[in-house]
């Protein structure tokens, strides 16, 4: 039955860690539609780049799928109504970063059929690459793996460069999360359609779908759907964190190294998350925009764990109320436990970049852990996927030698995967040091540049 190419590999990238996966708790649960919240709260800044600009007014009735805000520039995307209802209020709304963002409070019509209207379809055969890119932007598509970077910007191959491989990222290396796993099992056709659009707009010669060995069923399913002769293959790699990072994935599968400070296109690769690909394949033929996304809601503190199709803008409080939360809840994360952000406010909403909600109880959150001095055991050096020296960087951070960290020890290459903190026996908050150091270095450099220009 399987006609597509399916390869199992032994090779991976260097270093990395193996946190307990905890995926079996939700990876067998099919995607279920989540109920509509009575009020949807939509922040306009839910992607990287300029916030979307609101085009509706208070009191206006909107239908599901209607554009509520247009892209605020090239690096920006529009936002669509996830539900038919009325714009109750336009005001600042809280976001996970703690900053307020312009936003829309949308009150759902309780008895509406919630039918989504057809838009202007993007025809795969006749559309030009630029029309496809425009279609992707108009659909409000951003990286659904968590980065929330506008996908059309990433897909635009710069002048003088070319893309030979389109890499579809189905790694999902964060523990607990099974969003991409379920999407691959249930939306295989959408993924293949999405790949066709993506190959056309990037000009890629072939496509590789990268999947970790803990999702063999998904790999086999996708391979079985690929028509014979299509330049699409499925590559299965050994489980290792952080393989879902673009750099690690490219190295694991192609053996190419993205240069320090560079982008995947520098080694002729464009990487797109698998759920993002599925969404492109699902929306573009109908000219619709994103109204909902798949979110894994899991963790020891959740009663009804599962993979849910949740309308964008659903308040977190409503989500947790629906699934039921253990009374000993301690922390709630947006994203996985390795790179996810702890939520400080339940009035924030599910946004396009929310791939999972993980709830930990007092039992899992052990604090305060005693911080010992660095004993130079080298565990972090063995864990860092970029072969940085977190121990040395940590000591330099303590002495506030931020410029040395950046200039001599490649601080700015760190993408904060957390592997060093995960293994550190002295419980040194290395990633937190690096986050802070990076922002200080960036500020200093910006100040220097401004000073030079003035």
């Amino acid at each position, binding site marked *: 039955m399987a006609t597509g190419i399916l390869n199992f590999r032994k090779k991976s990238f260097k270093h990395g860690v193996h946190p307990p996966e905890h995926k079996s708790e939700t990876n067998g649960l099919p995607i279920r539609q989540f109920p509509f919240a009575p009020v949807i709260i939509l922040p306009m800044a839910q992607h990287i780049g300029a916030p979307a600009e609101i085009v509706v007014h208070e009191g206006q009735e909107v239908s599901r799928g209607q554009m509520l805000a247009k892209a605020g520039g090239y690096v920006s995307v529009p936002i669509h109504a996830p539900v038919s209802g009325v714009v109750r209020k336009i005001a600042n709304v809280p976001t996970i970063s703690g900053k307020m963002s312009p936003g829309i409070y949308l009150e759902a019509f309780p008895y509406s059929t919630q039918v989504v209207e057809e838009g202007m379809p993007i025809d795969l055969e006749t559309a030009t690459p630029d029309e496809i890119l425009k279609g992707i932007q108009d659909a409000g598509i951003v990286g659904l793996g968590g980065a929330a970077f506008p996908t059309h910007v990433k897909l635009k191959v710069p002048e003088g460069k070319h893309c030979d491989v389109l890499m579809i990222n189905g790694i999902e290396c964060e523990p607990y999360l099974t969003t991409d796993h379920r999407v691959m099992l249930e939306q295989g056709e959408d993924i293949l359609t999405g790949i066709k659009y993506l190959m056309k707009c990037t000009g890629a010669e072939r496509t590789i779908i990268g999947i970790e060995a803990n999702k063999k069923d998904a790999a086999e399913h996708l391979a079985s759907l690929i028509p014979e002769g299509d330049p699409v293959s499925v590559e299965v790699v050994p489980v290792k964190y952080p393989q879902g990072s673009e750099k690690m994935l490219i190295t694991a599968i192609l053996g190419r190294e993205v240069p320090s400070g560079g982008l995947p296109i520098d080694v002729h690769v464009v990487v797109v998350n698998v759920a993002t690909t599925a969404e492109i394949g699902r929306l573009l033929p109908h000219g619709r925009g994103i109204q909902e996304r798949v979110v894994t809601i899991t963790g020891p503190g959740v009663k009804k764990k599962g993979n849910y199709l949740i309308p964008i803008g659903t308040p977190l409080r409503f989500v947790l109320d629906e699934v039921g939360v253990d009374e000993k809840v301690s922390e709630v994360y947006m994203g996985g436990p390795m790179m996810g952000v702890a939520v400080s406010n339940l009035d924030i909403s599910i946004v396009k970049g929310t791939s999972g909600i993980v709830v930990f109880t007092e039992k899992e*959150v052990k*604090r305060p852990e005693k911080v010992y001095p660095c*004993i130079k*055991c080298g565990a972090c050096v063995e864990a860092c996927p970029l072969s940085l020296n977190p121990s040395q960087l940590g000591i330099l951070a303590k002495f506030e030698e931020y410029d040395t960290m950046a200039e001599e020890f490649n601080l700015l290459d760190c993408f904060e995967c957390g592997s060093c903190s995960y293994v550190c026996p002295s419980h040194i908050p290395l990633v937190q040091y690096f986050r802070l150091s990076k922002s200080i270095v960036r500020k200093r450099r910006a100040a220097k540049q401004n000073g030079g220009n003035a």
Partner: protein
Amino acid sequence: MEAMLNRTLNISTSPHITKGSSTDVIMQNVVWALIPVALFAVYSFGMSAFLVIATSVISAVLTEHFLCRISKQESTIGDWSAVITGLLLGLTLPPNFPLWMAFVGGMIAIGLGKFIFGGLGYNVFNPALVGRAVLQAAFPVAITTWFPAFGEGRFTSVSVSTFTAPFMEPAVDGFTGATPLSAFKFDNVTADSMELALGQITGSTGETCALLIILGGIYLAARKMMDWKIPVAILATVFALSGILYLVDSQAYPSPVFMLFSGGLMLGAVFMATDMVASPMTTLGVVVYGAIIGLLTVVIRIWGGLPEGVMYAILLANAISPHIDKMIRPRVYGTTKKKASA
């Protein structure tokens, strides 16, 4: 929902999970790995050895606690590293070593070997070896006066030198005997390898039973609490170099097996050179570091004025270790060449 609303959520920075390893647990395990070695020392040398080891452990822990208190810091004895220092120091001393000298050794090991550098994590040298080096310089006779193993009545009486009054030189002990290394050095007599491996010889308290030291090392390496590449690099270098010499002239030079199992090499290679703080972090760095220790040990033992050279070999390599880490840096992902060392 109500419960949810009534609770204050905690926030922390990612990652929100850890592997669960902990520095104090690593240190405790090193202590467990050393216990059989210490027990064998007590079994073979009796009461005197027990008192020497206990004194240096107590001295190291008290010194650490006291120094933390007078510098107005929280006491760090809970991290167990002072216990290791005391144990290692005690295991490198002769069993009949005067207790007051052992106590001074523990104070020096912690004070001079660790505390003045900034405590755990900042020491340049293995603290126990710093203590021993100072003792060797200060009390050259006491530290080379040995006591035979398996003496009659070793559990009921102690060596006459054990309770020497502070600041007094010990009385010459009637039971002193030559260690295999000094016998070779000065009389060109080598001991039987089987006896060496099983500890049927005289020597410092914890240096005599190579087998138990190796078992302790395997335990730590299996739990990933010790870098096995360090002792392997040291022992391989010693074996190779002394093997070449032995092939050249088997009369003048000792056999490589004798070299491996005599003196403090095994204890030094497995438990002291592997001090994480004072050894390099990269694989290549660790191999270079081990090779340097092996080379220096052979050179000092064969051509130096002392019968044993492991201690100085490790101390010298400790001093070089930061430079090894500076020079041998793994290539950072996405860069073409190594950055110039700072």
